[in-house]
């Protein structure tokens, strides 16, 4: 082949550059579109809901009058349900992920388990609701309580936590494991001193992504029968209630509502004044999710700083 002249080389580059720029422009357009939609949604909620951003909105129970209705029972309910979810899902998910990566032998059984964990992440959340209705609400007799809701959402996010735990563990180089085993450590010592601490940023990210998903879930919570109109809080431990002093864990059996249900309830009312409440509550929910993500990013950054191979 004859070598190209300078002119020809320049025209080849120019053609290449044109495609380069074309793709760049397309990319920027797509990105901007997505961002504009999100920003518009948030702005819409803020504008619509602005007249409800008062302290009373956070401290009032639900009410038939839109201007007096608040989200107290909803945000308290959401936080308590998340607490139960985290307490149930984190130890289970991390232990399961650790076992699968560090202890389990590779055979057909673990392969089937692996495939199914990935599949579980794709099961529609309403199915978890139906499962929970049968098992937690009726079989175990937990009723329509914070405990039932927390455990349901825990099941829902368990696959997310297991998968992210496994990925975080897999990112640890084999030489670290070997270095630990070579001084005579057991598997558990290796996990306890190395694998778990080094995987922690990744695990934490998975946990928070899971919780952020759970806090917005509506379908399974409705399925197990959360109330939509509730004008009391779960009993605070060791305070006087109508039936005597509340125990440390009485609140887990309490009826409850959560943010997405409260929003859903308000949007389905005929009175347009409730749309303002819904928009305001939607913004609060959004802020809760975003701040959870912010915490995740901060913690991951802080923890990763010290972990270098």
């Amino acid at each position, binding site marked *: 082949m004859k070598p190209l002249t300078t002119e020809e080389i320049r025209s080849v580059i120019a053609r290449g550059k044109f495609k380069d720029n074309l793709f760049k422009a397309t990319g920027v357009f797509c990105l901007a579109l997505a961002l504009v939609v999100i920003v518009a949604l948030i702005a819409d909620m803020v504008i619509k809901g602005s007249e409800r951003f008062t302290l009373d909105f956070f401290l009032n129970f639900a009410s038939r009058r839109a201007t007096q209705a608040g989200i107290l029972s909803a945000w308290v309910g959401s936080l308590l349900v998340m607490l139960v979810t985290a307490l149930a899902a984190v130890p289970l998910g991390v232990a399961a992920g650790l076992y699968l990566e560090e202890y389990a032998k590779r055979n057909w059984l673990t392969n089937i388990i692996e495939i199914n964990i990935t599949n579980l992440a794709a099961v529609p959340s309403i199915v978890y609701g139906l499962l929970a209705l049968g098992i937690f609400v009726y079989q175990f007799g937990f009723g329509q309580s914070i405990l039932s809701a927390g455990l349901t959402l825990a099941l829902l996010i368990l696959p997310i936590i297991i998968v992210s735990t496994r990925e975080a563990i897999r990112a640890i180089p084999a030489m670290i494991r*070997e*270095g630990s*085993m*070579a*001084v005579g450590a057991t598997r558990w010592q290796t996990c306890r*001193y190395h694998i778990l601490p080094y995987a922690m940023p990744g695990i934490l990210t998975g946990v928070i992504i899971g919780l952020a998903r759970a806090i917005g879930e509506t379908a399974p919570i409705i399925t197990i029968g959360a109330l939509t109109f509730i004008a009391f809080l779960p009993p605070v431990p060791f305070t006087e209630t109508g039936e005597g002093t509340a125990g440390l864990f009485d609140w887990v059996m309490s009826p409850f509502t959560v943010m997405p249900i409260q929003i859903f309830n308000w949007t389905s009312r005929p009175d347009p004044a409730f749309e303002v409440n819904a928009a305001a509550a939607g913004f609060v929910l959004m802020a809760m999710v975003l701040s959870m993500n912010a915490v995740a990013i901060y913690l991951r950054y802080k923890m990763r700083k*010290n972990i270098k191979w």
Partner: protein
Amino acid sequence: MQIHDQPTLKAEARNLNFYYGEAKALKNINMPIYDKKVTALIGPSGCGKSTYLRSFNRMHDLYPGNRYEGEIRFFPDNTNLLSPEVDPIEVRMRIGMVFQKPNPFPKSIYENVAYGLRVRGENNRRVLDDKVEHALRGAAIWDEVKDRLQELASNLSGGQQQRLCIARALATDPELLLFDEPTSALDPIATAAIEELVHELKKRVTILIVTHNMQQAARVSDYTAYMFLGEMIEFGKTDEIFIKPQDKRTEDYITGRMG
């Protein structure tokens, strides 16, 4: 050769075979390791030197499908290191290892060295302090790190990291120290420091070292074994092997005609 010249045995491979699944990686290896001497394993890539080395501390047990045949006798107690009744953790507590690439844990310098002791249940601060210092001195890195023991080990240079890994292995007083190409990731100056250290260490501990570098084998070792395709071709005193190899294949390798 007179009898009193003969050093004592620290370990001995007897009819050792090793399989990665179906693939036979080591073929009927017989070889002595002498006490308080440096034994070098040389040979072309893929000849099984690292596989052989990693048999001594049962590293292969960490992965499924690996299988040993034969024995590695460990003295003075004449334990068969490869016996299924012998716990690999017990073996690793007696035999230390330094890897090809420095692999300090992402923890402080102090914790890296103290780790082996902690694993053995030692939590007394004073004992740990003493042993950490002793090990760091033994690895000729104490003066460089004594003022920053709480700093992250990853802040050290590659050569320092490798010496830290040697200190980590020394902290628990191993009887045998395995080196798997310890200088292949280091520059010549750091390499020289490690070689000098190996020379110093053999007063205290028996050393088995895999190396790609024949000059290194000649410089640091008392005995050398040449391996090829999973077989032990020749074993002898280092000066004899390098000056007058008995086997044609050894000669080809060390004169650079092959490998």
